[in-house]
């Protein structure tokens, strides 16, 4: 039986459709206390006075914590560090009287009931000494400073631009976007005898949260266990520990009782977000579509206390053959919370700009957009001059175009119609990295043919439970129903945070290497049996299949694993291993995609609908074609949202988000989404890692917003470069 490569249904599917899957804010304890947060209403300054007396007077209120009376916390930055923290001085919830952003937590009300805490939170009186704040990226462009992020320049881009036959240069803009996972950020902390804490947290990294909490409160790792068996979406927002976990622990330490703290939707706009970014792209080309130079400059926002930046710019001349290239990444400091990773950070924004620019260049050159990309196709990583472990992007273009019917496109804008609708067809390329991380893994095999596989990683909806079960089933030769997966628990073997699309490759490799050791042990046991049919074989000469240890050379030479274990008097075999990948500096590792989109635009009303999308993805071996397709589909929906709907609006007079809810921050709903076709292009790759896995969490969104924008141009003849493309921009 092989499970890898099949559309195996989710092993946690039943729990999710019956409502039995438990999320962080749903764990309980006798004596549970409910928390509510009070947040700042200014963007910069200090708290002059905070008066909780009215809140404390409410029947059922147990305490109100502020910077004046909270439990002891570390005084240095090191105590607040987490593995995803950017350079800077991390935010410390309830530490002192300083206000760094609007919506900052400044008090925690603890009460016997949730409604009481929420009501009492409205009674906390705060006076501020406000200072002048600045929250608008556009007013701080001249203050932006360079970060040393992008790849080195090559050649002389300025000279090539000056000599170019055809040149396209434009500025693109992506506003602030918030992740808005459906589950509200929540932590439930139980306080056990002697002060041991169990923390149920909404996080993508239980061990990261564990280290963070220990660092802040001076606790020992043995005294803090962090769990997140189910996570209701995160998309990067759960990579860093969020402030509610600090507050919930403060409450539990203070009251020596269990505390649950669930943020409200509007409070979640005080967490991380995709930073507003200005992207300037210039491309110099010859008339035949050969590129001579690409220059890509990004100016993004960050907070006053941390430098958040991701690779926006160097995708440009990684992707396309160009002798000269130059990248710049600048940051402007604002009085806002630090931005954070959000699905394909850097690439979703940078490649949006690049792929719109390529479309504009294709128009200028009168070339088909696919044809232009083929003319500057590169088989090597242009930045580091390395070959790829695999790159089937050409096949993505071919398969995607064919499935979409691209050949029928007429190039002129406004040339295609469906009744009163203008029809537009656009396309774009996507690119992301195939990252991999060291991961721990434990397998316990029992003689009854059951296995338990565990790792402290997370399943944020990505399907980690299921792919771990699939890989373990194949490696151990067991039916999937005999495999139990444990994850989301800091006491399990080491895991990096779940992010960057590295989990599938990393965890699969960890499982197969641990399973190798189990096989070695099983073979040794089988060879001790009298007249063993496996005598003399090395562990690489046998496989585990259908509950047996089988010689590769002759399937008839086999021993049931139960017999081998029982004969040796072994009831269980347990192995734990930390698997590290071999360093490979000789290859570039990337995933690629080609996206084709149809939009229909109502000519009078300017309403845009994405009626069809095809995303053809080359991402190595796909472990689960069902859950991976869902990830790509969900990413396309994100791309539609990014192109047409999503925008966090700040009232700069107050430095405060105006649409901090999901009625006014628009995310795509069912009626916004139509036909989405996902194609996985074959991409055999024995170099990237033994199973050839590259990961699909981010690649699906990269390029989608550009494809939509390009389709809107094709439909209307209007080039909108600042997202989202709303009706006013079409009609205006």
């Amino acid at each position, binding site marked *: 039986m092989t499970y890898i490569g099949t559309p195996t249904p989710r092993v946690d599917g039943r729990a999710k459709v019956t*409502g039995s899957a438990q999320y962080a804010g749903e764990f309980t304890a006798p004596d549970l206390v409910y928390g509510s947060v009070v947040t700042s209403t200014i963007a910069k300054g200090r708290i002059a006075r905070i008066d909780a007396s009215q809140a404390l007077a409410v029947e059922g209120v147990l305490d109100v914590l502020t910077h004046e009376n909270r439990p002891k916390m570390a005084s240095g930055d090191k105590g607040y560090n987490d593995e995803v923290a950017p350079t800077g001085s991390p935010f410390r919830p309830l530490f002192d009287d300083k206000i760094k952003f609007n919506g900052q937590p400044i008090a925690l009300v603890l009460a016997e009931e949730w409604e009481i805490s929420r009501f009492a939170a409205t009674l906390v009186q705060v006076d501020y000494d406000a200072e002048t704040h600045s929250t608008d990226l556009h007013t701080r462009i001249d203050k932006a400073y360079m970060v040393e992020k992008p790849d080195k320049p090559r050649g002389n881009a300025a000279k090539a631009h000056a000599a170019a036959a055809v040149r396209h240069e434009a500025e693109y803009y992506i506003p602030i976007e918030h992740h808005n996972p459906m589950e509200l950020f929540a932590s439930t902390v139980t306080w056990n005898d002697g002060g041991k804490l169990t923390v149920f947290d909404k996080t993508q990294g239980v061990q990261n949260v564990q280290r963070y909490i220990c660092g802040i409160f001076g606790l020992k790792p043995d005294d803090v266990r962090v769990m997140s068996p189910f996570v209701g979406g995160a998309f990067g927002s759960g990579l860093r520990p969020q402030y509610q976990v600090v507050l919930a622990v403060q409450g539990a330490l203070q009251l020596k009782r269990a505390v649950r703290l669930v943020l409200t939707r509007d409070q979640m706009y005080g967490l991380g977000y995709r930073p507003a970014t200005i992207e300037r792209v210039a491309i110099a080309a010859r008339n035949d579509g050969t590129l001579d130079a690409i220059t890509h400059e990004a100016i993004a926002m960050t907070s006053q206390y941390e430098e958040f930046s991701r690779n926006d710019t160097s995708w440009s001349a990684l992707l396309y053959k160009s002798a000269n290239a130059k990248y710049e990444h600048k940051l402007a400091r604002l009085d806002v919370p630090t931005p954070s990773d959000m699905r394909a950070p850097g690439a979703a924004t940078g490649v949006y700009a690049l792929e719109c620019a390529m479309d504009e260049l294709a128009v200028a050159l009168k070339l088909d957009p696919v044809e232009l990309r083929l003319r500057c196709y590169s088989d090597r990583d242009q930045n580091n001059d390395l070959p790829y472990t695999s790159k089937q992007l050409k096949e993505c273009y071919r398969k995607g175009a064919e499935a979409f019917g691209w050949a029928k496109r007429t190039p002129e804008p406004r040339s295609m119609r469906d009744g009163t609708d203008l029809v537009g067809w656009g396309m774009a390329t996507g690119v992301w990295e195939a990252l991999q991380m060291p991961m721990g893994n434990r397998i316990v095999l029992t003689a009854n043919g059951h296995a338990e596989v565990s790792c402290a990683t997370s399943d944020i909806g990505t399907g980690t439970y299921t792919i771990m079960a699939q890989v373990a089933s194949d490696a151990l030769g067991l039916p999937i129903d005999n495999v139990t997966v444990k994850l989301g628990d800091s006491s399990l073997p080491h895991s990096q945070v779940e992010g960057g699309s590295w989990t599938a490759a990393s965890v699969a490799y960890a499982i197969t290497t641990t399973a190798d050791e189990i096989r070695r042990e099983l073979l040794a046991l089988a060879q001790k049996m009298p007249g063993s049919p496996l005598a003399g074989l090395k562990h690489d000469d046998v496989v585990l299949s259908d509950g047996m240890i089988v010689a590769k050379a002759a399937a008839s030479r086999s021993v049931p694993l139960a017999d081998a274990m029982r004969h040796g008097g072994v009831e269980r075999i347990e192995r734990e291993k930390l698997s590290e990948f071999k360093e490979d500096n000789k290859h570039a590792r990337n995933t690629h995609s080609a996206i084709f989109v149809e939009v229909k635009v109502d000519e009078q009303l300017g309403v845009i609908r994405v009626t069809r999308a095809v995303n053809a993805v080359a991402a190595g071996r796909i472990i689960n074609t069902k859950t991976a397709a869902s990830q790509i589909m969900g990413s396309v929906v994100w791309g539609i949202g990014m192109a047409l709907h999503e925008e966090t609006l700040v009232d700069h007079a107050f430095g405060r988000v105006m649409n901090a809810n999901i009625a006014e921050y628009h995310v795509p709903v069912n009626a916004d989404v139509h036909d989405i076709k996902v194609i996985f292009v074959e991409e055999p790759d024995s170099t990237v890692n033994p199973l050839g896995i590259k990961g699909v969490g981010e690649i699906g969104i990269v390029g989608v917003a550009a494809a939509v924008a390009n389709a809107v141009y094709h439909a209307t003849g209007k080039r909108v470069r600042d997202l989202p493309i709303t009706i006013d921009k079409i009609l205006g």
Partner: protein
Amino acid sequence: MDDPTSRSRFRPEATSKPREISVTLHVNGEQRTLAVAPWTTLLDALRDRLHLNGTKKGCDHGQCGACTVLIEGRRVNACLTLAVMKDGAHITTIEGLSADGALHPLQQAFIDHDAFQCGYCTPGQICSAAGLLAEGKAKTADEIRELMSGNICRCGAYPNIVAAIQQAMGAMGSKS
């Protein structure tokens, strides 16, 4: 370590909490009587008092549909409904959809079509879809999309949700 000085606190005249009212809810076929304050929503009563956490809270403002339950067979946002308003009502939550361990055709169809990722919107989607089927209004995929647009799925499983509802429609239609 930084140790802020603790303030002494005086308590002005106490605000007493609201008087609780007894309500009887018929939840998933079981009669449950509980005392709730008037400000308690049906959603919080289900989750915090009856420990039926299958019904989710995604916004608490009627904007996301995660809290959808069936009241007298009709789909309702439990976060916009006060528990005291529903004295005597018959309520079905996701926990009550499957009978004796057998999944409801919608639950099975959601698994078959992978109509979710994180699963957080899923109970609301399924209850909403059950209400939709009972309404009998949606025939086409476009009608399903429109009438399911009160249930947000941030994981973006919409096309699979539509396919799952169509499968269940077929399965339930052929049974009746």
